[in-house]
């Protein structure tokens, strides 16, 4: 009515700082476009059933576009089909579905995410050694895809053996518990492939508690992890911070507006995985900002402080 676009934003989850920052990036971007867009927020709390209902309610509200992060690669397909049939543009943010029923996808491929870390680790170990893998949650595609990417890589190195792959829920405490026990059972662990920074932190603490020398580990771009890495650098610790940047959240809005404006948009914007290595670590770590904050951001330091304080 007011000539603005109405965009439905489905906040898929509020349970960790990454998902919070993803939503914050979107909001920050939306504030720049208040003249052009109205946003209707819905909250899925990690519950696929709820997400489907939310999409349907957004259809009922006749929004012009829906931005959603599917919590299941398949379950949402019928609902999204319905939305598109109603003329609503669908933009998938940070996760995809196993069909073509969307108008744009803005993400970093999780398989590539897993692969990137694995390649770095394999090189670092000179193509041989015993490693452990720390995964997220069984049945969630992010977790499965990342591990799939990693396994593809390790399969090419016959001398690299995954002695244990466990689910630690992207969680620090679970990561630490898992690694403590695995260390006790395995006198030789040469590397840790982890698909989440908090779990890598847990792994580091477990190694230190067991007084075992640190080994190469893959990490992520969360500030808490980067700070720790920085501290440990002079002890010879080496890592890689693979990133699924939260600025995808702002990018999704830009893409959505382009779509609604009728501009040509690349359907699958699958960005290469940004990485942080020892060489550029200093560029990304922010010693004065919160541990919760993620480096792959378009937020200003002030906005970060407003979101996470310290």
């Amino acid at each position, binding site marked *: 009515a007011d000539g603005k676009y109405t965009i439905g934003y489905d906040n898929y989850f509020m349970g960790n700082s990454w998902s919070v920052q993803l939503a914050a990036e979107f909001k920050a971007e939306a504030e720049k476009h208040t003249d052009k867009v109205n946003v209707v927020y819905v*909250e899925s709390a990690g519950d696929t*059933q709820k997400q489907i*209902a939310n999409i349907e*309610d957004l259809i009922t509200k006749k929004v012009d576009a829906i931005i959603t992060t599917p919590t*299941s690669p398949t*379950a949402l397909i019928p609902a999204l089909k319905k939305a598109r049939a109603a003329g609503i543009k669908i933009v998938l943010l940070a996760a995809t579905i196993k069909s073509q029923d969307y108008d744009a996808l803005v993400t970093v491929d999780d398989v590539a995410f897993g692969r990137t870390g694995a390649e770095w680790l394999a090189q670092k170990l000179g193509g041989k050694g015993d490693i452990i893998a720390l995964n997220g949650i069984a049945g969630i595609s992010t977790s499965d895809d990342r591990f799939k990417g990693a396994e593809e890589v390790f399969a090419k190195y016959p001398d690299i053996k995954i002695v244990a792959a466990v689910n630690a829920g992207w969680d620090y405490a679970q990561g630490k518990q898992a690694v403590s026990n695995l260390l006790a059972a395995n006198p030789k662990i040469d590397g840790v492939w982890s698909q989440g920074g908090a779990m890598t932190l847990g792994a580091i603490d477990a190694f230190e508690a067991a007084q075992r020398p640190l080994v190469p580990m893959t990490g992520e771009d969360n500030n808490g992890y980067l700070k720790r890495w920085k501290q440990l650098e002079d002890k010879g610790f080496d890592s890689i911070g693979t990133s699924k940047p939260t600025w995808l959240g702002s990018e999704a809005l830009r893409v959505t507006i382009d779509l609604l404006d009728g501009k040509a948009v690349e359907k699958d914007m699958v960005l290469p995985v940004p990485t942080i290595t020892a060489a550029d670590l200093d560029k990304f770590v922010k010693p004065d900002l919160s541990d919760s904050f993620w480096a792959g951001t378009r937020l200003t330091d002030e906005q970060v402080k407003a979101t996470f304080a310290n």
Partner: protein
Amino acid sequence: MLPRGSIRTNLLLGLPALLLAAAIVAVAASWSGDFFAAGNLGNLVNRVLPLSLAALGQAFVLFAGRIDLSVGSVISLSTAILATTSTSLGWAAVPLVLVAGLACGALNAAGVIYLRINPLIMTLASSAIVKGAALILMPTPGGEVDYTFYDAFYGQDLLVGWPLAVILLAFLGAFLLFGFTRFGRRIYALGSDDRAAYANGVDVRRVEWSVFLASGFFAAAAGVAVGIKILSGDPLIGDSFTLDAIAAAVLGGVALQGGRGAVPGVLAGSIALVLIANAFNLLELDPNLQQIAKGLIFVVALMLFMRGGVRRTA
């Protein structure tokens, strides 16, 4: 006219949920033009379907004074089975899913009856086991349910269609069962007082078997509804149903200590729960407040029931 007897008391227990649902409809309809949009009513029926079926199964168990925490996992497993078999079996996959649901119910019953494990803990354990089974069958969401299932069952997502028919049929059947059959009386009797029920000739084991089987069956039926809705399988999708089904039943006046409550209340409770979330979205209320509101509504509704007084046994 309400029939004399305990049915009347039980029906009255469902009244607050009904009033709550009506109030939400009134508020949502007067503040949002979208509420009565055809699409919305159809969506609501489709959402009530799996929740109310799961809650109905739960009600069997609750009436008997037991509880079933495995409902969510059974729903997940059901979608997984449906999505792995429906392409080859067609509609024959549905009875297969229902049989699997019965098997889960049988596991619960066996644990409760033969191993004498408390139902809360037994179904908590079986919930993990069934979830494991779902993950074995389908480690990540996928599989396929053909679109013809959706078309045949949900059709155009209208108010009047198969989902409504299934709800009405299931609840009418259950209403007659609990209100007017000896079998229903036995279930209430068991929930009312185990020892007295046994002394009155109730075959406790048989009733326990049947309520857990019923719960498994209805959870599987809910799983079929979910599976057709998502046209795929998902080993985690059912998790939230467990607590929601209990909440719906309880909101509808079913007493957790057993023996009290009626089937219409369960339906009213399910409708109320679905409406709360819908109203929040349509009215664009802060989604962060939704959980708080749900909790408060719960407290208020429960206060209304409790005014009637609790049984004197501790």
